[in-house]
């Protein structure tokens, strides 16, 4: 394997989003140091401005149809990568917007907060383009690195420190699993590149199988699928809420980009062997997440367990292992982005004035702030998959993909879980709308937060009622998996 890497100016253009984000990162860091007593809100607005420019660049690249392999084939910029880059950037913009008022409550280091968020986002931008095992490993760790600090950001709060430690120890453990798996795959195939592993001449050897399983388990930790979910509840509960929101969506999306390439492009020909495994992971995640969520009294823990179940839902699409399945994953991630981030935004807005994250703190929210109550209703029902909201189309798409591949057992478990999840979401809805508030002072919502919440609610409704352009976008992004079904034919 030779590393004769040549860079052309065109390659640099393909790297533009990453380069711009690196520049933005340095700028924010410098400004933070220079403006010692300055207004930290400016940093947030500046970050978002920069991110919007990067989003425009990504959109321009998607329109012009960039499809390049860089550094050999280690780094790929195709429509799938661009879709996920946009996904990461949009979620980062929303996170920064909802963090602005939250960071005022932090004791110190308010500037670094934005730097770390951008740092993780940069890692994820690289990650969604990873096309070989080594890039995958490095970018995974790169993006997790920022989170180790962000999760433990409230260092005087023991829960936050515990959350950070938990994430760090399990993250390090996961990294070792993945590294070991990569070494085994490399030993068996003699290559790290996804395309070359896919074209390998010999079949499945025991070493390759173990390596595959280890990498899959490692990625399972990253997305928090049961039985690799143990870090999720405590980390979600302890971390500062905007960080929880970020952690619950952007790394999951990026990890699914890697999983799609790893499973469908690299091991697509062997899918008969791993489909059963993914069906099991999916069923376990959905059932475990939903059942345990019922018993939760803390809204962040509830969303943590519901997040495990949502990951189980997305795994249905991966288990379908088809073009339709990957379409469904991408679309579902979009719906999940807005519904989940919106729900966390409402949680932040409520907790800033009630300083509580218990579900009981949501009693009578409808009387205190009809806007927050109505949007929370929309977000929770979208997560539950009720029409006419986005989550319904997403779930239906996943079920259609699974039914087309004749995975009826998975569809049945998924449908049963829809009903289970409806229960605990409705319990929250009941507290919001039916119960009387303990303290009925009206809640005020800062304007930027309001924009994010209303924007997410609008997105959830639009995705549910008029999904046509988004479905077209998604199906175009997954063209590279069109051959998966054909390849698996005997």
């Amino acid at each position, binding site marked *: 394997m030779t590393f004769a890497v040549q860079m052309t100016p065109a390659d640099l253009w393909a790297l533009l989003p990453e380069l711009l984000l690196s520049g933005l990162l340095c700028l924010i860091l410098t400004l933070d140091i220079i403006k010692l007593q300055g207004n930290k809100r400016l940093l947030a607005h500046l970050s978002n401005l920069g991110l919007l420019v990067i989003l425009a660049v990504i959109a321009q690249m998607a329109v012009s149809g960039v499809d390049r392999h860089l550094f050999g084939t280690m780094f790929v910029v195709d429509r799938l990568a661009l879709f996920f880059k946009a996904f990461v950037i949009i979620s980062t913009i929303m996170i920064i917007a909802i963090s602005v008022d939250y960071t005022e409550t932090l004791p110190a280091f308010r500037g670094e907060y934005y730097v770390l968020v951008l740092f993780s986002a940069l890692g994820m931008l690289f990650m969604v383009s990873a096309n070989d095992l080594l890039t995958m490993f490095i970018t995974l760790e790169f993006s997790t690195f920022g989170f180790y600090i962000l999760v433990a950001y409230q260092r005087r709060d023991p829960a936050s420190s515990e959350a950070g430690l938990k994430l760090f120890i399990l993250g390090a453990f996961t990294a070792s699993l993945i590294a070991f798996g990569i070494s085994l795959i490399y030993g068996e195939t003699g290559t790290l590149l996804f395309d070359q592993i896919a074209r390998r001449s010999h079949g499945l050897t025991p070493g390759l199988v173990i390596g595959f399983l280890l990498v899959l388990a490692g990625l399972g930790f990253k997305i928090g699928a049961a039985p690799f979910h143990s870090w999720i509840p405590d980390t979600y509960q302890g971390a500062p809420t905007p960080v929880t929101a970020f952690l619950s969506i952007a790394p999951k999306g990026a990890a699914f980009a890697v999983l799609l390439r790893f499973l469908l492009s690299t091991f697509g020909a062997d899918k008969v062997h791993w489909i059963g495994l993914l069906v099991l992971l999916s069923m376990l995640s959905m059932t475990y997440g939903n059942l345990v969520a019922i018993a939760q009294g803390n809204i962040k823990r509830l969303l943590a367990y519901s997040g495990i179940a949502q990951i189980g839902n997305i795994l249905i699409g991966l288990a379908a292992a088809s073009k339709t399945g990957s*379409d469904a994953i991408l679309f579902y991630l979009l719906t999940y982005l807005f519904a989940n981030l919106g729900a966390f935004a409402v949680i932040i807005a409520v907790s800033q004035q009630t300083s509580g994250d218990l579900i009981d703190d949501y009693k009578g929210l*409808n009387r205190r702030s009809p806007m927050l109550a109505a949007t929370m209703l929309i977000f929770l*029902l979208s997560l539950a998959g*009720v*029409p*006419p909201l986005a989550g*319904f189309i997403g779930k*239906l*798409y996943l*079920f*259609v993909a699974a*039914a*087309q591949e004749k995975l*009826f057992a998975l*569809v*049945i478990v998924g*449908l*049963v879980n*829809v*009903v289970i999840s*409806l*229960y605990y979401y*409705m319990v929250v*809805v*009941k507290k919001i*709308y*039916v119960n009387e508030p303990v303290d009925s002072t009206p809640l005020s919502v800062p304007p930027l937060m309001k924009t994010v919440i209303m924007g997410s609610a609008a997105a959830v409704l639009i995705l549910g009622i008029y*999904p*046509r352009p988004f*479905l*077209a976008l998604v*199906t175009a992004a997954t063209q590279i998996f069109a051959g998966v079904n054909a390849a698996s034919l005997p």
Partner: protein
Amino acid sequence: MTSHLISLILFAPFIGAGLLMFISNRQRTLVRAVAVASTAISFVLSFYLLYAYNYQTGGLQFTEQYVWSKELGISFYLGVDGISVPLVLASSILVFCGVFVSWHIGDRLKEFYMFLLILASATMGVYVSLDLFFLYFFYEMSVIPMYLLLAIWGSHTKGYLEMTDTAKRDSIGFLFNFAKNSKEYAAMKLTLFLSAGAVVALLGILLIYTTSGLHTFSIPELAEHGHIPANLRTLIWLLIFFGFASIAPIWPLHSWSPVGHAAAPAAVSMLHAGVLMKLGHFSIIRVAYEILPETTRTWVVVAAILCVFSIVYGGLVAYFQRDTKYVIGYSSSSHMGYIFLGMAALNVISLTGAILYMFAHALATGMLFAMAGFIYDQTHTRDIPSLGGLSRKMPFIMGAFIIALAASVGLPATVNFIGELMIVIGSWPVYPVQTVIALLGIALTMGYLMRMFRGLFFGELSSSSAHAHDASPFVDRLPLVIMMACSLYFGFFPSQFIHVISSGVEPLVAKIQGVAEVVSLPPSGSPPGSPPGHPQENPQGIP
């Protein structure tokens, strides 16, 4: 030609709900005006629809089709046939009346009307959808507003309020609660039951979609060209049947329904018993009957067996209830059995009767629930033994109650009579035992309704109703007058209705029974009053 009549009927309440979002709760007059205006549009246009529908041509009319997603083969496909026209009309009558019935709600009136309008639109959406996806979409959409309407504006049962042990009150059991339930319990039970039924049906829909090989959700297309593998047909039929029958509700799946009726505010009980439960029958006809006609012929006997339990069980339980809304609720689930009987007999008379009865029952039960709600508002109790002597306080309500009672029992001059008669005549040759039981069920209905009538209006005036007064001249009387008028008008002049319904039923029955059997039907098989030489519909796609 594309007509937007159906979209107008469907979206008028939706737009009303959208407008309400921007109105403050303090502007009560404006809130009411928007609710009345948006439902009035649907109300007037559905009457127009009934008379504009051309029963000579029959088939699907007023269709509108817009591609919604090519990737999944979904189109927003609306249209009505003879079966859906009366149900659209029933929905729009009931929601229009429901707006007036809930006129005096004090707490969060705007939100109440918003959810009520969404509920009504979603219900109508099911009746006019010709695409499986949208049928399910609207079906599932109707469940959530129900939850909120019940849980916020509903009422607890007397048994629950009398429980003094607060620990026990909060931990009310899920399966066995013996009429001691809170409104939240009722709402949650309803939501979970209906969603569970819905996902069972969704599994059937997904099976149809993936095995038909057409890559479409369009019902007419699936009905005409779909080739469902023979080994899956029974499974799919049963999934669809029991999935949708849970909202109907057929006997073993009924337990959510009386509880839900009882807890709901009056307008919601009206819509719920009047049109929401018929979503089940309608969806079974639309999906199972249209797409799987052969399987229907074999398996519809399930409905014929279970309907007996519905009729007898519902009737007997209703007889021993002490709560007004429970009596009407159980009576509704008992009456749903007649519709299943009419559907099971699979001939033109019985099926036409079943659909006419759906409309008739909507009006009768709507009146009863509206009055039960009015009495509850006046006296704050639904317990029959603690009520009495209301005839002196509310003579108008008593008069209306007599008509509602007559309609519910199915006395001549009401449209219920014609529906019941057609069901009985149509089912007699096919299921004589069930028909006899159904007739006994009518006597039972008479029994429990008379008992409730006596308990409410005669005897000593109870202290709880000392301050009760009669229905106010306009707002309270209008909904009752509208429903009474419709019930009597269509009871005297049912011919337009029967033509329209049978124009939808005839091709369907022909398709299920095969051409030969339709021809061999006795001449009395054509509905009364149908013009001689009324063209038999061209049966589509029958072997």
